[in-house]
Structures are given as structure tokens and as C-alpha cells.
């Protein structure tokens, strides 16, 4: 229940487990699904088939490629298993409120002459995209995919981590230490928690202690072994970050393990490492990374202008 509470704000209603099952069209026949016919397919983001004019704009907008025109009904449809509830279609697209019948008539007329209206690519002409209430565990998808949602566990939006962005205040990563951000699913590939668990278990196996102020750590049922909650393992998200730190001398072994496991995962892993610099701005991590064959062009620099409430 603790974890359900973490994401309670994202779910406007608490739905009994039996009802959640009944809402899943994958588990029950359509006639048992207690939803209006035009919305029967989904638990999550959906497209109102009464409004959709099959313009196809939302198809290219979806980062997961989860939207397609259903040729049977000639309307756009969201594949709820692939949808990560990132809200890119609903929030990122501009909306017009045109009459669907009017738009279909115009489009049909133009089609007779093999012409096609060329609308703005980021517009849904009939406001047909409708977000649905999310229940546990599906609500986790939105928490990790919609950057405007703040993780209750850390108070940080996006992927919910502060990393070394606030290191001048928190002093989380000290001199001689290295912070790691291992990010799964980015860019725009997506990942399921069961794949993240393969990495967390492998890292726990070499003695890694995970950052407590991290949303993925909050979803572990056993932090010591890196095991994640069973009920979220099949949930797909846009990306998530696993965070931890080690002494600088452990960098080669850790990076080698991450690389070894990443090769076995059906997704992409983005790797970031951080450290505290010396007074003159020198970083002891750079020669270690160079030795390991990593090139590093881009990064994030904390200027040290932050201070705690006491001014320290």
C-alpha cells in the first residue's frame, strides 16, 4: 500500500483489483468490459472514435509508435500495451475544436480528387485525444514517462533525480567518489521494469548500494538484492534512472558490469558518471575514463553557487 500511496495523486480513483482486471481488454472479452463502446479498448490514453478524423498527425507524434490507424474502422487507435502514458500526444499537440463531421466531409471531398489537406503536423483538429484515469500499476507508466509529473518519493519531476545538480548543497558525491546515472530506454526506445531489474540485480551482486532518493530505488521490494516489485515488472516506461555511487577505484569494474548487462537488454542504456572537482576545477575522474577508453565531450557542470538554508 505504501507504494500505491506514492502515486496516488496520479490516480484520481482507487479502483479495486477485480475492477482493474475487468478493465483490461487483453484479459476479458469485449462484452465484459464496462466501458462505452467507443472507448472499450483502453485503460489509459485513448482516442475518441466519435471525434477522430484519421488525419494521422498523432501517429508521428507518439514517441513509442503506439498509435496507428485501425483500417477496420478508419480511426486512430492507441496500443495500450506499448503506450507509456507520456502524454506527449495529449499535452504536446495543439488542439482545434472542429466539428468531426465537417472535417470528414471536407477530407472525403478532397479525396475524390486525390488531394489531401496538409494540416500543421502538431495539431489534433477535433480534440480527439482523451487521457483516462490510471490505476495501479499502470499509473507508474505516467510517473516515469510524463516529465511534468513530480515523483512523490523524491519531490523531483521528470525522472525524479537530483544527481550532482545540487551537489554543492547536498555534498552527495565527495572527492574520491563517483556518482553513476544509468538510464534505460533513452532515447525514445522505452523499457520495461523487468529489464531494469536485470541490471539492478547484477549491480547488487557486485555490492552496489542504490541511492535512496531515487524513484527506482523506491520501487524495490528488496534494496539489497535489487529486486523490484513483482506487480510493476511488465510496465513499460519511456525511461528511468538507476543511481548509486562508489569509490573512484571501482569505476572500471562497475562500468564493465554495466556494459556486460546492457548488451543483454532489449533497450538502450545511457550512461553518466559524476564527481566532485578539486579547488582548481580538476577532475580525478577524467584520467580514469580515458584509461577505460571512454570519450567525453558533453556534460553538466555544477558551478558551486548553491548553499544551504544556513548559508553553508
Amino acid at each position: 500500500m505504501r507504494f500505491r500511496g506514492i502515486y496516488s495523486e496520479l490516480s484520481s480513483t482507487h479502483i479495486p483489483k477485480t475492477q482493474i482486471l475487468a478493465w483490461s481488454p487483453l484479459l476479458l472479452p469485449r462484452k465484459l468490459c464496462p466501458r462505452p463502446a467507443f472507448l472499450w479498448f483502453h485503460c489509459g490514453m485513448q482516442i475518441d472514435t466519435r471525434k477522430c478524423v484519421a488525419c494521422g498527425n498523432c501517429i508521428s507524434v507518439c514517441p513509442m509508435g503506439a498509435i496507428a490507424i485501425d483500417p477496420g474502422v478508419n480511426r486512430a487507435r492507441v496500443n495500450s500495451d506499448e503506450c507509456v502514458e507520456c502524454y506527449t500526444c495529449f499535452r504536446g499537440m495543439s488542439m482545434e475544436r472542429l466539428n468531426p463531421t465537417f472535417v470528414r466531409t471536407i477530407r472525403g471531398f478532397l479525396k475524390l480528387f486525390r488531394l489531401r489537406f496538409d494540416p500543421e503536423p502538431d495539431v489534433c483538429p477535433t480534440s480527439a485525444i482523451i487521457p483516462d484515469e490510471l490505476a495501479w500499476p499502470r499509473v507508474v507508466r505516467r510517473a516515469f514517462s510524463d516529465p511534468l509529473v513530480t515523483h512523490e518519493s523524491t519531490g523531483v519531476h521528470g525522472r525524479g533525480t537530483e544527481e550532482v545538480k545540487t551537489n554543492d548543497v547536498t555534498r552527495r558525491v565527495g572527492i574520491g567518489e563517483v556518482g553513476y546515472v544509468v538510464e534505460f530506454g533513452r532515447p525514445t526506445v522505452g523499457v520495461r521494469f523487468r529489464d531494469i531489474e536485470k541490471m539492478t540485480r547484477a549491480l547488487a551482486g557486485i555490492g552496489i548500494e542504490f541511492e535512496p532518493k531515487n524513484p527506482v530505488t523506491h520501487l524495490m521490494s528488496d534494496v539489497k538484492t535489487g529486486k523490484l516489485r513483482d506487480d510493476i515488472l511488465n510496465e513499460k516506461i519511456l525511461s528511468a534512472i538507476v543511481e548509486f555511487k562508489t569509490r573512484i577505484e571501482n569505476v572500471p569494474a562497475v562500468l564493465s558490469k554495466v556494459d556486460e548487462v546492457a548488451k543483454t537488454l532489449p533497450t538502450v542504456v545511457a550512461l553518466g558518471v559524476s564527481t566532485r572537482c578539486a579547488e582548481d576545477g580538476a577532475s580525478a575522474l577524467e584520467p580514469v575514463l580515458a584509461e577505460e577508453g571512454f570519450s567525453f565531450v558533453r556534460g553538466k557542470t555544477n558551478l558551486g553557487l548553491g548553499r544551504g538554508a544556513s548559508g553553508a
Partner: protein
Amino acid sequence: MTNTLHRYGSGESFKDDYIVFAIPARGINDKGAVEKEQRFLEIARKHNPVNMGDASHGALFRPSKSLNPLVHWYRKLTRDFEAVIKGVSCPTTVAAVFDNPDAVVAFVRDLRAADLGLSINISGALEKVQECARRAGLERHSVEYSLGFIGQTDRMADRRTLELSTMCGHGMLSFNLVRKLMEWVKQGRRTPEQASTTLARFCSCGVFNTRRACRLFEEELK
């Protein structure tokens, strides 16, 4: 903001890409952070940023929920600075994007003088950022390196698509939309500026660099 850490491209590709952002530490200095973040954005505005935004509410370029159909023929490319500054209502991350190091140096000098007490970070090519920090009289406190992508990298898009789509690290820019706009620019159906503004509307944090995107679209035309 790992959102800006893993942008794809060579060192040369980041010559006009600097993201300066402010963030409070949760539970330590987040009290009174809203006013400080608004001050950060006001100072940033003076230095003519390419884009800026508040990670909880939106950026300079925003989608509209009640468009007039005439936008299909004429769409204004305006930037609403006031909406971003006044929109900050809770402690969050605020960011400003610049396309030249001189503006970054001047901005950081102003931030030092303002003494906001929030953590200030710059995301960009590491050497150039360190140079900017030193010109502003600062040495870096901590540094985070992007070591790139590993795993099933064959599932990623081509280089140009990645350069554009990774400018929103939260993944709001789909490969398909970037490819579509790139085709439209090549076909002359949209200008590079129109295409980059369209992409920027999907980046709610305001870290999408429209100037760099324009340049990348233009390079694609050559």
C-alpha cells in the same frame, strides 16, 4: 537535468548549445525558491536566451488548446517570456538556453551578483563550459560526464534524427516527427524555423535549442 546530459552530436555540433539551469535541493534550500527562480528567469531574459522554461509548467514555445483553423495558413512564432516567468509556482528546475558563450558568461556574472543561493549548472561541451565558468570567475564544483549510449543502439535513429530528437532528453520528440519535419523542410513545405518551433512545442522544460535545430535543418538542406 539528465534531460540535457545525453544530447547527441560531436563537440562541434554543440558550439551553439549552452543550457544554464537553476535547481533547489529538496528539503534543504527549496523554501523561497519560487521567487529566486523567477529572478533567475528575469536575469536570463536580459541576455536574450534562445529558449527558457520551467520544468513544471512549460516553456517559451507552447501548444495551444484552442487553435483557430487559420493557423494552417498563418501561425505566429511568438515567445511569451512573461508567461514563463509568472508561471513558476512551486520549487522546480528553471532553465535558459543560449547560443553563444559570451551571453553565458554575462549571465553567470549576473547570477553571481544576484547571489540566489540555488545550485546553478551549465550543460554543454565540457571544455567550452569550463572556459565560460573561468571567464565568469568560477571554478567548477562538480562535473557529470555523458559517456553515451550502450546496449541495443541499433534501435536508435540515424545521426541527424538523434541530434534533433535528443534535445528533449525526456523523449517527447519522437523519431518519426523529427523525420517527418526533416522531409518537409527538404520538400520546402516548412522552413527550418517553422520546423524547429514545431519541435520546441513538445519540449515542456524549455531546453530545446531552436537555434541549433535551425542550423541542423539547414545543414540537412546542403
